């Protein structure tokens, strides 16, 4: 187990190091001179040269990278165009997106697992076709369109929910949930479709397995066979899938926050790109890559703890 952990952590660190180089070079490839952006109205060559010197922009790229990485490792992601700390801005915006993603995961998993179990147990019956078709619809429907339709239906026509904005949980839990219901459903729809498909497939595997036949032969009730034996084993696979969907959720949060006017991490990404705020773009892209790699690593480790066979398979040939 120790060797497996070391290998996985080592691989993740290499990926992160290479990702940081890619982010650094990518931002340098953006059109426009960062000194001009930092200088605001200033166009005096001497002042611009001073800015380049102050920010180390006149140094060779490897030196700039090493200096930048050194700061990043200390939690310093630099300052944005408004002279605010990028790390601080990200730390303020991230909890909003994490709440949104958390609620979307709850919605997507509950709906997906329920629909997947029903589809597997009623395989080939109308319930199975209904769930499978709905999953396909969930996979094909564009998030942002679903968001717009929900705003029209529940905010504009019925006045049940606010059309957008964000109220923190600490300020008013009720209002917070009112604002988050639609975005969470929009973000969770795709996830529920993926979870449903995986759950159905895993449950069909489990229901055909020897231990389920044994459980039935022992005279256990169908509820206990499905609920305890088949479901528990299928959940391992599905939990992994939910973890791996994090990247999709981050991507989805970008557009969902844009539609519902939520000032979270996703909205910050678009604002950074639109304002050509290099330090901010660098920060948000790096943080999303780190988050994604770390969650993938955790999923791998948890999965290997739950399923020891994976540790043997993962060993290089």
């Amino acid at each position: 187990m120790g060797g497996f952990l070391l290998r996985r952590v080592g691989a993740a660190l290499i990926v992160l190091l290479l990702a940081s180089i890619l982010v650094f070079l990518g931002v340098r490839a953006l059109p426009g001179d960062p000194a001009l952006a930092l200088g605001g109205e200033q166009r005096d060559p001497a002042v611009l040269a001073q800015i380049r010197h102050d920010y180390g922009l006149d140094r060779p790229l490897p030196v700039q990278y090493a200096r930048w990485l050194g700061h990043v490792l200390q939690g310093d992601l630099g300052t944005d165009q408004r002279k605010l700390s990028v790390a601080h801005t990200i730390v303020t915006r991230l909890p909003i997106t994490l709440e949104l993603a958390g609620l979307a995961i709850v919605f997507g998993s509950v709906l997906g697992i329920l629909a997947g179990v029903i589809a597997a147990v009623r395989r080939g019956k109308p319930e199975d076709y209904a769930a499978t078709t709905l999953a396909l619809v969930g996979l094909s429907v564009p998030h942002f369109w679903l968001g717009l339709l929900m705003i029209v239906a529940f905010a504009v026509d019925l006045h049940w929910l606010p059309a957008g904005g964000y109220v923190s949980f600490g300020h008013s839990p009720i209002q917070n949930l009112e604002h988050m219901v639609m975005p969470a459903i929009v973000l969770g729809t795709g996830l529920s479709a993926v979870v449903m498909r995986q759950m159905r497939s895993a449950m069909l595997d489990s229901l055909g397995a020897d231990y389920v036949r044994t459980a039935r032969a022992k005279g256990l009730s169908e509820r206990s066979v499905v609920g305890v034996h088949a479901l528990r084993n299928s959940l391992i696979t599905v939990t992994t899938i939910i973890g791996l969907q994090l990247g999709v959720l981050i991507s989805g949060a970008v557009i969902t926050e844009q539609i519902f006017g939520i000032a979270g991490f996703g909205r910050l990404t678009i604002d950074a790109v639109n304002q050509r705020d290099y330090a901010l773009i660098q920060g948000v892209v790096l943080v999303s890559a780190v988050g994604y790699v770390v969650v993938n690593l955790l999923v791998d480790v948890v999965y290997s703890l739950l399923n020891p066979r994976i540790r043997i398979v993962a060993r290089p040939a």
Partner: protein
Amino acid sequence: MTVVESAPDLLSPRARRRRLLRRRLARRPLALIGLGVAAAFVLAAILAPVIAPYSASTTDFDALLAKPSWHHLLGTDELGRDIFSRVIWGARASIQAGVLATGLAMAVGVPIGLVAGYYRGWIDPVISRLTDVVLAFPFLILAVGLAAILGPSLLNATIALGVGAAPILVRVARGEALALREEDYVRAAVANGAGDLTILFRHIVPNMASTLLVQATVTIPTAIIGEAVLSFLGLGVQPPTPSWGVMLADAQSYLSQAPRLAVYPGLAIFLCSLSFNLLGDGLRDILDPRTTR
């Protein structure tokens, strides 16, 4: 008693396989519907100048935000432009982005994956790690970042989506090449002294074609939705060129007055993406019956 062999059994193995695939396809009405609808969207994109009643930019200031009528089947937008025509013209951007981005992803991803899976050695872990690096960036974040670097346009959005989708193709091609290189017919070709290129293009690539076809069919809807998202965010097609994403972005300001502005372009994205997904699912079942449950 004479046994009369039925004519189809005289067919070559390849023709027999084709006939089998046709029969399997005919037994999957959803895949056929998907194929039909997807083909209709492609045709609409190609024939837009012929079938659209108006040009995408013709304005009718006497009919601003008009309701559906015989003159304007789906009504008009805030500038009096015919929504039905703009939805048809918008298919061009979506289909172009979907097909070209997928083509680019295949052109980049498949050769890299082939090299990694076929040659293995030091090149395989290097390519695999580099693929992991690109996959470490959530798809939309990567596409938004690339679109920002390249500048907002349909071509650049297509490139960004293609590059973003390429790592998955690398993984698929690598996996297939790893498995196929161990097959008996590949070993036989090696024993016969066949060169690497012959083995790759005569034995390995044709045998992974069905997997790649399925993967391409499911990449197209992802790219179509990706284009709509990038255009919606202002990083893809630029107005006044029609695109479903741009139409949805414009519709946002009129949600209370004319919600239909948001309905039709979204419905087009949904149906287009659903049709390719139905086709992809059907093809997967047809080409690899083991996955059918």
